[in-house]
């Protein structure tokens, strides 16, 4: 497979060993040939690499380094290229205005024996931000390329016209090589070393070495740093060189790994599974050290080519919902089960917003962007939106909003007529007529009720919620409740999440009857609370967002923690009850409104 290669196929041609010991490169190529034979007829596979799964040594084919170097196109433009493999897509930056774009963008990808190995490369012109056009594409079989005997890793491939596959529209140069495991280890050691090599002399002093062992998170190793340092410092010169560190890591891996957690992302590593640890650390370091130029987090090349990337929340375009939460061709559907009608319903959200949230919240690159100022941006836009929505002019948006959500907002349930609301924010926190929300088993305090008009997720235990829904690696009950609330009673408790959407009634109510013991304000960010962020292992929405924790003491349920979490645009939390109040289930408890 693979077309357009400028090189002839030379699969299974013998390595020029001639009885001498094969070179490392030829051994690698032999390995890939064996892989190809094993794979032939298997139909490939459909494994996704976007989330690393545990693989066995039989499945592990290697880590391939693919570089999109540049292209020769038929006309001048600003170009970007996308690399798709399996269910993941990466894109380069946009070139200068030229007919010979240069990207030199690289990406390491994990190859599995039965996983996808046909890479598709697409080249887009980007002269208009919102509409990038696919100009040419090609496909390449990575197993095939990696088994070729050649002095050069560079391939020149013809780019085909997507509307006429016989027409060549340009050429693209790529480099593709499989990383020698020894080189992987060395490169790994080099990158590890670079983290703590503060004076950048390529060597580790004892104090630098000590910091490194701490970063590995291995408590046992941390207690014997001196011993490890002596063991590593083979030549006894008082410093550990890159080679010495690589040797130490290799030796320790044979015995007991000193790396218990990934120094980049903090994930706990399984000490007995060195293969997956190496894969994890290699790919993670690649992202963490900024060597990776290609941006990931996309599902298709078309998505990766879009010119919008920074719509950080479905709320960001709230004030222009007529174009924001659009139902046009790019609309995406979120499936929700409607408990009242007992059927699945589709909720519309602009597809571009979904994809950009995915790109931002579900990739380390995206979260890196958030660290570099987007947190402040989220705070700032939320504050600005709060001011805007509290202005008299904002009231003119109310009819448009109701029209847009006409199937979901029931005017006759509202306590006051539309004319009553002087600002959009007043409308947003509208009250409902008494009885508009019947309370289940109203006189029985042993029956708890839903606290908000919302999309609900419920889990018997916090552990279940982590398994099925909340993927942020740093989520914990202690983190959620903060240090001023005793969390011990809730550690293995039952967890219910009520997510409010823009069109919802935004007042929340008490789920149980009891006495309000305390309120604790916890400052924080204003990430979106959309499932895209909640399901991201890189984002810790619930434990990093601004929130107010209240504890309700009840006769039937013991203590119940009620946490109101602010989000992008809707960061203002107001309570209508006070500490010490005795409250009845179904009573109004407070509301969310626009603001920071």
């Amino acid at each position, binding site marked *: 497979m693979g077309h357009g290669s400028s090189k002839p196929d030379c699969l299974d041609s013998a390595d020029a060993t001639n009885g001498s010991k094969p070179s490392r490169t030829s051994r690698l190529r032999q390995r890939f040939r064996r892989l190809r034979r094993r794979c032939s007829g298997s139909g490939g596979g459909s494994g996704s690499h976007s989330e690393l799964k545990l693989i066995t040594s039989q499945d592990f084919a290697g880590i391939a380094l693919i570089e999109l170097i540049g292209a020769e196109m038929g006309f001048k433009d600003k170009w970007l290229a996308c690399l798709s493999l399996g269910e993941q897509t990466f894109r380069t930056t946009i070139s200068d205005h030229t007919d010979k774009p240069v990207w030199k963008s690289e990406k390491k990808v994990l190859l599995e024996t039965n996983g996808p190995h046909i890479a598709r490369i697409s080249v887009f012109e980007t002269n208009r931000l919102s509409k990038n056009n696919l100009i040419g594409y090609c496909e390449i079989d990575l197993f095939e390329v990696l088994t070729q005997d050649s002095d050069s890793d560079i391939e020149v491939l013809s780019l085909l016209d997507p509307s006429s596959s016989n027409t060549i529209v340009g050429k693209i140069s790529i480099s593709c090589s499989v990383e020698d495991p020894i080189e992987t280890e060395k490169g790994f050691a080099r990158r590890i070393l670079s983290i703590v090599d503060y004076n950048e002399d390529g060597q580790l002093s004892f104090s630098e070495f000590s910091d490194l062992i701490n970063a590995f998170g291995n408590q046992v190793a941390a207690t014997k740093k001196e011993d490890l340092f002596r063991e590593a410092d083979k030549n006894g010169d008082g410093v550990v060189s890159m080679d010495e560190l690589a040797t130490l890591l290799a030796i320790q891996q044979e015995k007991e790994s000193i790396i218990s957690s990934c120094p980049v992302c903090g994930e706990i590593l399984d000490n007995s599974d060195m293969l997956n640890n190496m894969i994890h650390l290699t790919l993670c370091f690649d992202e963490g050290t900024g060597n990776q130029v290609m941006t990931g987090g996309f599902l298709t090349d078309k998505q990766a080519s879009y010119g919008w990337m920074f719509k950080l929340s479905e709320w960001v375009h709230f004030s222009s919902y007529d174009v924001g939460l659009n139902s046009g061709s790019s609309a995406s559907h979120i499936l929700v089960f409607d408990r*009242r009608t007992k059927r699945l319903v589709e909720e519309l959200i602009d597809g571009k917003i979904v994809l950009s949230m995915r790109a931002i919240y579900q990739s380390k690159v995206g979260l890196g962007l958030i660290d570099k100022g987007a947190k402040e941006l989220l705070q700032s836009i939320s504050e600005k939106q709060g001011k805007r929505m509290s202005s008299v002019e904002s009231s003119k948006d109310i009819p448009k909003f109701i029209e847009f959500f006409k199937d979901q907002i029931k005017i006759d349930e509202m306590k006051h007529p539309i004319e009553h609301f002087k600002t959009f924010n007043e409308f947003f926190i509208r009250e409902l007529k008494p009885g508009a929300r019947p309370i289940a088993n109203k006189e029985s305090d*042993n029956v708890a009720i839903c606290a908000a008009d919302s999309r609900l997720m419920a889990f018997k235990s916090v552990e279940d919620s982590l398994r099925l829904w909340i993927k942020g690696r740093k989520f914990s009950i202690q983190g959620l409740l903060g240090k001023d609330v005793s969390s011990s009673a809730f550690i293995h408790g039952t967890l219910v999440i009520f997510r409010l959407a823009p069109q919802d009634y935004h007042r929340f109510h008490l789920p149980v009857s009891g006495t309000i013991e305390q309120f604790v304000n916890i400052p924080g960010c204003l990430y979106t609370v959309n499932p895209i962020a909640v399901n991201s292992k890189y984002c810790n929405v619930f434990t990093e967002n601004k929130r107010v924790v209240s504890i309700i003491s009840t006769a039937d*349920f013991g203590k119940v923690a009620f946490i109101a979490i602010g989000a992008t645009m809707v960061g203002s939390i107001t309570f209508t009850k006070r500490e010490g109040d005795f409250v009845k289930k179904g009573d109004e408890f407070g509301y969310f409104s626009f603001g920071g």
Partner: protein
Amino acid sequence: STVICIFEKDAIEIDEDLLANSERSLETLVSVGMKLGVSRKEQAETDL
């Protein structure tokens, strides 16, 4: 915006339909006042 409620371990028996949907990573559209679950206190006392 989101509200999270945490109940103490074994304090509540959440309605089965809500748990079943969540197990499938499917959110359930609910309204204020709909039944969420029942206290297990009485059950525990009966068991004793």
